[in-house]
């Protein structure tokens, strides 16, 4: 018997991800077990059949994303989840989903790498892989939740963005958030804003779009429109083409669609204590709690410090951070890697604001104390 889910539950981030996905309409999951994301597969295996959905444990990471894409093409909202090594293996098909414009949510619960690395330890080393991991130039949406509740909410948003913009969305979690346990409100579907792909295909052409539009509409396989999907550059009908003019148009439309809609729901960021701040701490995902603690303590110590957290990591809230930087003497980027978001921040922050960095990749978490020490030492 399908159990009625309690509205408030003590959950791991990984479990909240599954509940958010199901609330958003996920009815197919395919993946391969990998630490520290495995609980996503396990809970999907329990929960999906309870709601008439399907879970498949595939033979490898690649078939996990491939089967999910197949299900999406046939009209089911689909997800796959993995961690570092598996994220590397899925990259080719993330690119396929990008050019073929197939909605899918790909979860990467980051762990320390490269290679097998520190499988059970926190890291945020896949930030640039989320952006550039698949070959060829391409746009990307990557979202970084920072708590269990945030994971629930952001998973719903990941599905919505994926469906609205016919694009893969990377839900970039990390070991800290994935295994964090706290109370979570399972907001039911009826109370959520849910988006489904637009199924009114223009002239039965899967890649045709109207004046001023960037996202073609899409019917599902089996719904009566016979069309072709390919990973090659293609024309409006989805048929492969070597026509350079069409290739250029398609390539730039793919890039543009994420830029154009950046302010129509894609971008999200959060600020705390930034109104009068002179020091801004940039963080995301699993480092957020430590930064929140540090900001609180440093404020008590008299430092004018605040937090700037990109929720949507890619595309990055560049304009917003640049605007904020006008009042800041210092920006401290805090992340569990050797400086990946740091590269972006250094690239956009010009002028007098000093960009500093706290990174950690030894398998332990950054503490509020370490952040306060940094705040103090430069003063």
């Amino acid at each position: 018997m399908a159990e009625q889910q309690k509205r408030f539950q003590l959950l791991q981030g990984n479990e909240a991800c599954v509940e958010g996905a199901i609330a958003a309409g996920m009815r197919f999951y395919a993946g391969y077990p990998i630490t520290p994301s495995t609980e996503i597969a396990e809970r999907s295996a329990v929960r999906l059949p309870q709601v008439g959905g399907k879970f498949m444990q595939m033979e490898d990471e690649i078939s996990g994303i491939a089967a999910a894409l197949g299900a999406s093409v046939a009209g089911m909202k689909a997800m796959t989840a993995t961690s570092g090594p598996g994220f590397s293996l899925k990259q080719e098909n993330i690119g396929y989903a990008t050019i073929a414009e197939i909605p899918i949510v790909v979860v990467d619960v980051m762990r320390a790498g490269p290679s097998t690395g520190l499988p059970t330890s926190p890291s945020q080393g896949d930030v640039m892989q989320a952006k550039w991991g698949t070959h060829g130039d391409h746009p990307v949406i990557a979202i970084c939740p920072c708590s269990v509740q945030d994971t629930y909410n952001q998973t719903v948003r990941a599905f919505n963005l994926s469906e609205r913009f016919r694009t893969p969305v990377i839900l970039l979690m990390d070991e800290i958030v994935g295994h964090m346990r706290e109370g979570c409100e399972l907001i039911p579907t009826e109370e959520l804003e849910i988006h489904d792909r637009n199924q009114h295909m223009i002239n039965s052409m899967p890649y045709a779009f109207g004046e001023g539009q960037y996202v073609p509409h899409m019917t599902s396989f089996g719904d009566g429109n016979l069309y072709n999907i390919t990973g090659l550059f293609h024309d409006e009908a989805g048929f492969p083409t070597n026509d350079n003019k069409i290739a250029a148009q398609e390539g730039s439309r793919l890039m543009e669609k994420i830029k154009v809609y950046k302010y129509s729901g894609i971008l999200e960021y959060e600020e705390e204590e930034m109104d009068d701040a002179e020091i801004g701490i940039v963080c995301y995902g699993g480092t957020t709690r430590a930064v929140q603690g540090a900001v609180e303590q440093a404020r008590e110590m008299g430092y004018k410090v605040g937090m700037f957290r990109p929720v949507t990591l890619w595309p990055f809230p560049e304009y917003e951070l640049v605007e904020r930087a006008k009042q800041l003497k210092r920006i401290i980027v805090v992340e569990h890697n050797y400086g990946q978001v740091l590269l972006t921040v250094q690239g956009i922050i010009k002028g007098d604001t000093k960009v500093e960095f706290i990174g950690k990749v030894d398998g332990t978490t950054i503490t509020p104390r370490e952040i306060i020490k940094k705040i103090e030492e430069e003063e």
Partner: protein
Amino acid sequence: MPSQLVENTMRTKRLPHIWCPGCGHGILMRDVCQAIENLGLPREEVSIVSGIGCSSRAAGYMNYNTLHTTHGRAIAFATGIKMAKPNMHVIVITGDGDATAIGGNHLIHAARRNIDLTVVVFNNSIYGMTGGQYSPTTPTGERGTTAPYGNIDGDFDIPRLSEAAGATFTARGDCWHVQQMIKLIEDGIKNPGFSVIEGVSICPTYYGRKNKKGGAVQMMQWQQDNCVDIKKAAKMTPEELEGKIITGVMSQCKRPEYTAEYDKIIHKAGGDK
């Protein structure tokens, strides 16, 4: 003027195809379409899923729901379609490299699950699209651009490999014996489980040239003379069968089908209420 079959089942505006003159793949593509027509399947209920390589360009020419995927992954994509829409007839068109090298894992695991897919392998014994490298079905000793001194790898028997992994229908046909090939594809589609039909193709451009097999006509004549139906082969001596290709239904059995079994899981979990 295209034939009625081509008119009914192919995207004629997209023809002629990109295959070399004399390639066997056009015949095999037509055989797949003819089999679907013979079974009277509504085109809306048929998905053709392909991978990468010469074989896999077939999907784009065929007027069904067609998905041209990444190299080796067609069976995995097809698995997702079948799970989402179990009533859909999902046919995978793949090649020897696509299905048994880069995609070999998916082939054996889909066979193990016995999910109701029909896989037609256009086997030309070579990587054609990249210019003639040896594949897992290039016979030992024969040549490709990456086996300039002869191939020392063993070669796969695709139906036997699939049968051992759990496929419930395996068969082999060729380009010359068209009626037989069509019938084998029909039987594969009708089998409620994982079916693998190898279609022995010809590649005069690379495999033929590299191995001095003559042109397309000679290669087709070779198939006519050397592809022996399994029933006829049963009456022949091992000496007579030396160097022959045995065709027909290679194996057939019954096992629970995956999507039907998954429906039982949904029932157990209460998701069908």
